[in-house]
Structure formats: structure tokens, C-alpha cells
């Protein structure tokens, strides 16, 4: 009884359903072909692969870097104090300041020094004596150092701007970038507006160090940025713009966590 009652009204919808299914199947054919195409075609000959950095921001790497032990980092940091200062601020402006450093950025640079992806005669030797774990501990320690001014400290930061008239150019690039040339604002990756993985903190960085790095990115001497990000930007900057941005950040005027 029940079976008969159920069957009778089902017949017509079943036919419609089959028709609809057939229609969708027809629609799906070009999609499947598209998929087959893309996987089948390979470039005829590939140039030698260049890998900028062995670091990739996978889940495991992020977990490793963020689990650094700052107390162990404090002990390890004794060998960094000579150049980078006991409070993470160096006495000579060509050496970078490390206080308040971004953990991911710090760790990535140490890895790149060790693997030779970033060239520095001094730092490559230093990094060779540290393990992946040590770098994570150091990163944790330096990221926790305060950046506020200390009258007892012999730091060179902040430097004074050589040419204060460059401030307008610097502010424009840091806050707004240059859309016509495809230069994004510095603060959209280096903070404080938003951050991307591996972008260092610029607000407490020395002028000469920043200027050197921008030059090196532009001429390809430094090429350990993932997916050619900083190289694309630095190449487009004029000499005046590089000086302006470095001097502005070096004078402690840039937006960020630095407090005077």
C-alpha cells in the first residue's frame, strides 16, 4: 500500500531531476576541459631556479619562532652586545638597532645569514654559531626590549635629519606611497597600520643602516626578500626618496612604537 502511494507522485519529478542533472553535466564539461588543460601544459625549458631564502612562513615555522625563550635569549645576547648595544641600540649608526625587533623578521635574517642567502662577512660568521632554536630565543629577547629613551645609554639613535626639507617626501611615501608608480606605503607592511610576515620594525632603525639596505635591495646585492617584494619597491625609489625615508625613520619621526 505505502509503496504504491509513494511511487505515483515521484515519477514526474524524477524525470525533471534527470533532465536538470543532464543540464548541469553539460555545463560542467567545459570546466573539466579547462582543468585538464592547465595541468597538462608545462614550459619547454626552465631557467635555473633561484631561491631567495630558505625560510617559508609555514605553520611549523611560525610556531617555532613564536615559542622562543626570552631568558635564554638574554644569555645568548651577550655576544651581540658589543655591536648592537646592551639595550639593543647600537652606538654606531651603520649597525642596526635590535630593540623591539619583529620576531619573524629577526629570525628570518639569522636563518638567511646562516644559509648565505644574505651576505654579511660579520653576521654570517656569528649566525653560523647559532641554531634555529637559538635564533628564536634571541628574537624573543630582542622583541621584548623597551624602545624608550635611556639617558645612561650611549646609543646613536635618533639621528638628526641632514636635510629637513626631505620630510615632506618621506611622509608622503611612508603614509601614502606612490600609487602611480606602484609603490605601496611603508606603513602598510612595516606597521603600525598593518603588518606582513617578516617585515621588520622601522620606527627605531638607524638612518645609515636603512639607506644601505635600500641601496642593496635596489642593486640586487641583497636579494633575500621572499617573492621579490622589497626589491620591486626599492628599484623604483629615486636616490632622494631613499635618503628621505631613511633620514625620517632615523630621526625617530616615523610612525610606530618608538616613544620619545
Amino acid at each position, binding site marked *: 500500500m505505502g509503496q504504491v502511494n509513494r511511487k505515483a*507522485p515521484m515519477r*514526474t*519529478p524524477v524525470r*525533471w531531476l534527470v533532465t536538470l542533472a543532464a543540464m548541469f553535466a553539460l555545463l560542467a564539461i567545459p*570546466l573539466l576541459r*579547462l*582543468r585538464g*588543460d*592547465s595541468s597538462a*601544459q*608545462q*614550459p*619547454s*625549458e*626552465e*631557467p*635555473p*631556479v*633561484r*631561491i*631567495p*631564502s*630558505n625560510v*617559508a*612562513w*609555514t605553520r611549523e615555522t611560525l610556531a617555532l619562532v613564536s615559542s622562543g625563550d626570552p631568558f635564554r635569549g638574554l644569555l645568548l645576547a651577550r655576544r651581540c652586545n658589543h655591536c648592537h648595544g646592551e639595550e639593543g641600540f647600537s652606538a654606531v649608526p651603520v649597525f642596526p638597532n635590535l630593540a623591539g625587533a619583529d620576531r619573524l623578521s629577526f629570525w628570518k635574517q639569522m636563518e638567511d645569514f646562516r644559509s648565505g642567502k644574505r651576505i654579511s662577512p660579520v653576521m654570517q660568521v656569528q649566525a653560523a654559531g647559532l641554531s634555529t632554536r637559538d635564533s628564536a630565543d634571541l628574537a624573543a629577547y630582542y622583541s621584548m626590549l623597551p624602545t624608550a629613551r635611556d639617558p645612561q645609554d650611549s646609543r646613536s639613535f635618533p639621528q638628526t635629519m641632514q636635510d629637513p626639507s626631505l620630510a615632506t617626501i618621506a611622509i608622503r611615501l611612508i603614509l*601614502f*606611497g*606612490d*600609487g*602611480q*608608480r*606602484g*609603490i*605601496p*606605503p611603508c*606603513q*602598510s*607592511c612595516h606597521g603600525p*597600520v*598593518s603588518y*606582513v610576515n617578516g617585515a621588520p620594525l622601522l620606527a627605531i632603525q638607524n638612518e645609515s643602516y636603512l639607506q644601505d639596505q635600500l641601496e642593496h635591495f635596489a642593486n*640586487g646585492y641583497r636579494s633575500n626578500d*621572499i*617573492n*621579490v*617584494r622589497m*626589491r*620591486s*619597491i626599492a*628599484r*623604483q625609489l629615486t636616490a632622494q626618496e631613499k635618503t628621505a625615508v631613511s633620514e625620517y625613520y632615523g630621526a625617530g619621526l616615523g610612525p610606530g612604537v618608538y616613544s620619545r
Partner: protein
Amino acid sequence: MKKKIGFATVMLLVALSILSTRFYEVSLPVWHLLGGGNGPDPATLHLRGEFVESNLGAAQDREGFLTVRMIAQQYVFVPQCIIVPAGVPIRFRITSADAVHMLSFLGTDYGLKAVPGTVTEARFTFSKTGEFKIPCHEFCGAGHYAMRGQLDVVPQDQFSSLRPGERRTCGPG
């Protein structure tokens, strides 16, 4: 019963036709479906696969197509400037390293979505020569409005053929 089914079919067709005009708003799940999780991992694009930095730009592939490979990332396109000949079908293969981006070739009818974990492929033929800006057309973060690439379309005779293994971009490096 027949009336009801007829009505339902008509409504379905109307809905589909409306959806088809809003394709770009519903295409994202489609791209994810097509990618099927087999696309390149956005975190390791620079380590392996076709999107390593030495393989980006215009390349000649075995089928005779000119293929342009690009990465869209916060907040630059890499390579930032690409050069292609006019009047020839060009294959674009594009992926994203972080958020969803969209390339819109200003001055032409073309646009392309870059989705992390998925390779977007399309064939375009540019009839006009000139320089076209490629702004990012999908909000991707704080620097979105300054994210811009450039496409140079040159006459075919000015675009010397690529040697195997050669990758061409305009601009330095």
C-alpha cells in the same frame, strides 16, 4: 503539478541568468573547487613550483604560446612590469601569495582574479599597443590603493622571440 514544475523551472532559469551576470561575485568558490587544493602552497611559492622568482615573466612554452607568470601579493605585483606583443594570444598564469587580489588591465576588457592556493589561467589577445596600468581591483589590505603593475603591449615585430629558458619583463632586472 505540471504548472508548479514549469513555474519552478522558469524561476530557476531566471535565477541562473541573474547569477551569470554577477559571475565575478560567485566565481571565488568555483575557483576553489577547480583548484581542488592541488594548487601551489602560498607560503612556499618561492621554494618550488612554477612560481619561483627565476620563472616569472613572459616565457615561450612548448605549444608555442607566450605564457606570462605573475604573483600578486600584498602590495606589489611581481613582476611589476610585463611586456607582451600585440595581436597574439597570451596565456596568463597567476597566483596569490596571501590575500585575494584582482588584476584589471585598465583600457582593455580583461581582468583576472588571483586566489591563494589556486592558479588562475586565461588567454587574452591585446589588439591595442601601448602602456596599460594594472591596478588591484579587489580590496587586499592597507596598501591596496597603491598596488599597481604595468602592462606594455608592443607591436609584434618589436618583440623579439624568446629563447628557450628566457624570461622577459620590462623594467630593471
